[in-house]
């Protein structure tokens, strides 16, 4: 790499990276700075504060941190990430990959097809599919369970969006783990089995050490995606009464539905800080893995 850069010369290197830098500056850095600025104002979408926004310092931040609605959102987001990304997508994805690892018959094909289908469908399509499934009037789930009139989206809004997200994202995890499990030599498992190791012991002592990197990558990525996911809005719009108002939906509701752009921007920045933690952890992970020889 270094020799390439030296060969090109500094001027040409700058010329080649400039377009990318301009794009990053215009579409990433400037909006981020603008968002930070907006978060320090009382800017609204309409009314006098839209024409003449005032700087209010950290008011939006202290208001958000002191607001039960924001804290509720944060807590719901933790539930959403834990439930759907870590336990759901990563856990179920691994379980499916493990169960299917030696199968080559039609069952594997069917499972893969079903799981992949959920992954290639756009989020909005999946959302409307789940609205139809969970609808209290003639929804498929109520017909199957014989529970006419059960309002899943209203009575169990968090469970509904967690199940929805698990359905949507398990495919990615399953594919990743399927590939990872190929790296575990069957002979090692066979030896462990002959030595009398239980399935749990095989997983813990033979499989996990070999796929640790995959697990960490998977958990980090699915957590990050889930943390930022907005599609649950299509199912519940954060309702009823904020009981499924995860952070992304909270920001939308505050900034665009209620028109409080300043307050929304402040919370967006808080979310950006939380995302940075994920990103740094991910970068750290990549670096550590690169340093492992072989």
């Amino acid at each position, binding site marked *: 790499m270094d020799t390439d850069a030296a060969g090109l010369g500094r001027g040409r290197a700058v010329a080649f990276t400039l377009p990318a830098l301009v794009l990053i500056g215009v579409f990433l850095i400037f909006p981020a700075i603008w968002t930070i600025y907006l978060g320090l104002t009382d800017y609204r979408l309409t*009314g006098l504060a839209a024409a003449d926004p005032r700087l209010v310092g950290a008011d939006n931040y202290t208001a958000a941190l002191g607001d039960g609605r924001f804290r509720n959102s944060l807590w719901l987001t933790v539930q959403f990430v834990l439930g759907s990304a870590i336990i759901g997508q990563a856990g179920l994805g691994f379980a499916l990959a493990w169960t299917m690892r030696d199968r080559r018959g039609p069952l594997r094909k069917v499972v893969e097809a079903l799981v992949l289908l959920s992954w290639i469908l756009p989020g909005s399509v999946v959302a409307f599919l789940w609205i139809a499934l969970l609808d209290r009037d003639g929804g498929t789930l109520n017909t199957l369970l014989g529970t006419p009139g059960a309002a899943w989206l209203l009575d169990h809004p968090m469970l509904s969006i967690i199940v929805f997200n698990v359905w949507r994202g398990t495919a990615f995890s399953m594919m990743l783990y399927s590939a990872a499990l190929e790296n575990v030599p069957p002979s090692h498992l066979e030896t462990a089995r002959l030595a009398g190791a239980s399935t749990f012991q095989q997983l813990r002592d033979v499989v996990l050490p070999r796929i640790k990197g995959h697990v960490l990558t998977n958990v980090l990525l699915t957590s990050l995606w889930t943390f930022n996911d907005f599609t649950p809005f299509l199912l519940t719009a954060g*309702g009823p009464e904020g009981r499924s108002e995860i952070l992304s939906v909270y920001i939308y509701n505050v900034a665009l539905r209620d*028109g409080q752009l300043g307050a929304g921007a402040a919370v967006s920045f808080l979310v950006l800080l939380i995302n940075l933690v994920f990103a740094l952890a991910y970068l750290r992970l990549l670096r550590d893995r690169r340093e492992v020889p072989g």
Partner: protein
Amino acid sequence: MRLFNRPVLITALAATVLALPGCGSGAPAADEGTTLVITANSISGGKNSASAEWIKQWVIPRFEAAQKAAGRDVRVLFQPNGVGDEQYKTKMALDLKSKTGADVFDLDGIWVGEFAQAGYLRPLTEVGGADVETWEGWQQIPQAVQGLGIFDGKKYGLPQGTDGRVLYYHKGLFKKAGLPEPWQPKSWQEILDAGAALKKLPGVTPIQINAGTAMGEATAMQGALPLLAGTGTEIYSGGKWTGSSQGVRDVLELYRRIYAGGLGDPKLQQEAKGRDKSFAEFADGRIGILAEGDYFWRSVIEPKVGVAPMADRDQVVGYAKIPAMRPGTGIRGQDFVSMSGGAVRVLNPFSKHPRQAWELLSFMHSAEAVKAELAGAARVTSRSDVNTEVLAGDPMLSFVSEEILPITTYRPGLAVYPQVSAALQEATAAVVSGRPVEEAATAYRTKVEGLVGGSGNVAN
């Protein structure tokens, strides 16, 4: 590793180079003539379908032809929307914030103030020029109706019409429940009594009065505000907003009796599409009494163009005035109450062709155009000349025009109103989901104080 091989790169480059002149080829059309854009929250086959059809089938061809006859080459495009009112409002605000958007568009009259304050709207004369003041239509629009488009004494929009609120009831269900027909309750208690009788019918929700935040402004217009007027309280009066007044508590108590007492479906109030669902349920004969505006009659259960059409609407659907809490307790000592609102059409101050945009806007509000928009149906329009001609044939709309408009009330045209309304929606949501009236009323007062600048601006 190479990301692209040479043929792919050459093809991609060639495609880009070939496509570039294409980007500019659309531009010369602007030199040849003028393009104007209309937008509204209406879409063919969906929300306010008739209005979308009118714009496409009547307004655009006729206006273009009239301009051509005058030697001008004008093209008009229609951008349909079929979304929730709040989403439409956000979209319009974002368009105007970035100084883009349609030349002529619809707004709810109550949004005019906050859009004007933000600098998104300017008075019609400033945008459309001197022709605005001399427009023939002003003489046909009653002063009260003109008020829908007026903010701070200046005219910002042309009112499309006004409306009124009533209680609709399903005559078939009433008959089964042994209730009288025609039905005209004289107090809230009589509504609850009818609800109790309807409750005996299996699969029927007796009463549907909008509540909660999912319904948005519909909760205020179809529920909380007419009920509040029925207690003699105004949301804003004498320079002060009402706090946790007796009127607010009475309204919340009525909600509690309906939704905690099994007379209403609390779930319907919480669902994102709850209002549309309630329309469908009424049309299916599964809701007994429904509080709505005349929009419901004209555009929802209308046999041909409605979104939940009822072929036998005229035979099956009854309507009654909304009673005050008790006779004489309503606003101005009235026995019956209503709320009115209405949409206006405005000009985009950032339009590249403001003069032509005014021509288009005034053309859309000419007597001929307003009559065409009705397409044979009746509606309380903003023009008196059209009303005298078209309302005669429709007993429901004549009822609104003659019985409801004289007792109606309008919302305060203040920019903070939508937030106060949202606080009221939250209070009703809390009661519908089972919280005590007292708690909801206190929370409402606290919220309003924060919104309107302290307790000095709040009465009670």
